[in-house]
């Protein structure tokens, strides 16, 4: 019978405010050992702040945290020795070479001698940057910098890795390589990951997700279960673009009244209709549509972005109250 391990990380009722603005409002979640746990939410939902509190860059106004079951009042040297963070901006020195950056990271964590050389060599290999080892970091592409930054974070073999929007701004290929690098590390040893993201494709890679909205946890579940809240098909009505916002609002209302079905506003200029059998509904829908209002109709399976919209009533791409304060650390 497996022994029940305490969670690798536990946040209980964490709250945090910048002045009058409540950024986190009683956020609680548990991350099991070896789990990839996602904090899914748009900018300003408080996910970066939650990570900043977990790594000790910020101190929560109230609430508690546990690392491996141990209650921690303030993140100390002890916790920092076993965790590593990948921030939105790579924590690299642009003016030093790839190898020098890894070697500096090793020294900063007190690793020296042959162990340091071994870890630096492994980091270079994992980041697939051996051929660029002596190039200055400023000459690397965004994707390469990201891989190097992850190799930097993994150098001291942390048990808990915090990732803050690790693939934001990366293209599809770099996104995949970044996660391959993380998966390779997880295949080698037990590594718990908490990742803050607003990318549905990144959220899909998590074992479980906390859906964050305006500093609160709206739901915690596996990606499958979150999507299952929308077990139906999603029909996307793309409306004709209109110049001003009022017109487009009126247009949405007109279309939604015409089709006589509950629908929600999607990203950009779309209306979403959920239905068990989307393909059967479409012909009927088309008959009811007012002329010249809808540009296209399409049918798809629900995504995590749809699930987020359904749960919180807001699109993932919405900008929240602004992320400026959140990023300053």
């Amino acid at each position, binding site marked *: 019978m497996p022994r029940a391990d305490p969670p690798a990380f536990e946040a209980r009722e964490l709250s945090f405010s910048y002045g009058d603005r409540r950024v986190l409002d009683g956020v609680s979640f548990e991350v099991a050992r070896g789990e990839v746990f996602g904090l899914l939410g748009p900018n300003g939902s408080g996910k970066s702040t939650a990570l900043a509190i977990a790594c000790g*860059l910020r101190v929560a106004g109230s609430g508690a945290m546990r690392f491996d079951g141990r209650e921690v009042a303030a993140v100390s040297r002890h916790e*920092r020795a076993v965790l590593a963070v990948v921030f939105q901006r790579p924590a690299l*020195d642009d003016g030093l070479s790839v190898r020098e950056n890894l070697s500096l990271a090793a020294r900063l964590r007190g690793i020296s001698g042959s162990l340091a050389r071994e870890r630096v060599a492994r980091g270079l290999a994992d980041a697939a940057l051996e051929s660029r080892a002596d190039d200055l970091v400023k000459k690397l592409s965004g994707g390469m910098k990201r891989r190097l930054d992850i190799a930097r974070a993994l150098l001291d073999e942390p048990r808990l890795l915090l990732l803050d929007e690790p693939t934001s701004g990366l293209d599809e290929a770099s996104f995949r390589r970044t996660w391959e690098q993380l998966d390779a590390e997880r295949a080698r040893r037990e590594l718990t990951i908490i990742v803050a993201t607003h990318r549905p494709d990144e959220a899909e890679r998590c074992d479980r997700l906390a859906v964050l909205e305006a500093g609160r946890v709206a739901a915690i579940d596996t990606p499958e279960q979150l999507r299952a809240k929308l077990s139906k098909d999603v029909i996307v009505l793309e409306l004709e673009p209109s110049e001003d916002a009022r017109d487009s609002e009126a247009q949405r209302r007109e279309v939604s009244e015409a089709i006589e079905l509950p629908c929600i506003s999607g990203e950009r200029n779309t209306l979403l209709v959920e239905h068990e059998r989307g393909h059967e509904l479409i012909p009927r829908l088309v008959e009811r549509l007012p002329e010249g209002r809808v540009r296209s109709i399409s049918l798809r399976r629900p995504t995590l972005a749809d699930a987020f919209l359904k749960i919180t009533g807001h699109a993932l791409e919405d900008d929240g109250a602004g992320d400026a304060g959140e990023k300053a650390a």
Partner: protein
Amino acid sequence: MSEKVEDLATTAPAERAQREPRSALSQELAIIAALWRRDMLHLLRERSRWLGVVMQPLFFWFLLGSGMADTFKLGSGESYLHFFFPGVLIMVPLFSAIYGTITIIEDRKSGFLQGVLVAPGSRISLVLGKVCGICTMVLIQSALFVAMAPLAGYAYGTIHWPILALVMVLTTVGLTGLTVTMAWVLSSSQAYHAIMSVVLLPLWIVSGAMFPAGGNFMRYVIRANPLGYAVEGTRAALGGSGDLALSLLVLGGFATLTLAMAAAVSRR
């Protein structure tokens, strides 16, 4: 499955044991050494900086000193280039502290600083790493400049070398503590430069570096200015006049005070 869990349960304490030898002190020293080494790598890499390192004090001393020589007739009959030399030497820690510390603001912007802040270790080590880097830089640069001392009329034989080095180090630590404090508090490099040019440069001007303390209020200004003691200590260590013991005492106090300030703000 249960086998795998067993496996993990037994590896965790072993992993912890492996981390044990890194004591708090060795961790702190490793951080200081790593940050010092980083500054040295930058110094070695940026060749153009060496031109400034070697030429700047020399230019200042020779051009400004020669230009002013006719205006300032010192009562003692001392040549102005002789008088001005210790003052220019104190510009070395001044400029090194200002320019060397600006990297803290740049590191915060680039994201590098955050990576250091979440590593195990205390923030005072981060400050001390910076201080060590700047001290090394100052010692190299001032050695190159002091090599010219005979041109200003200071013979190598009359220079108290260890005391001169001590004055330079204490002055550097004091100034770096101050600039680190400012860099930590201010978020932009523009604000930092603005504050530095209205605080530190005037402080140097009224330190007795450019003109001697006359009989007027300037005497008290120089007495209240830590850089006044830096210039006086330097002048004495070079073999000139001045109260060396008092200078070292004040500079030691100045260094302790500003380091404490830097340590305090960096904890926030």
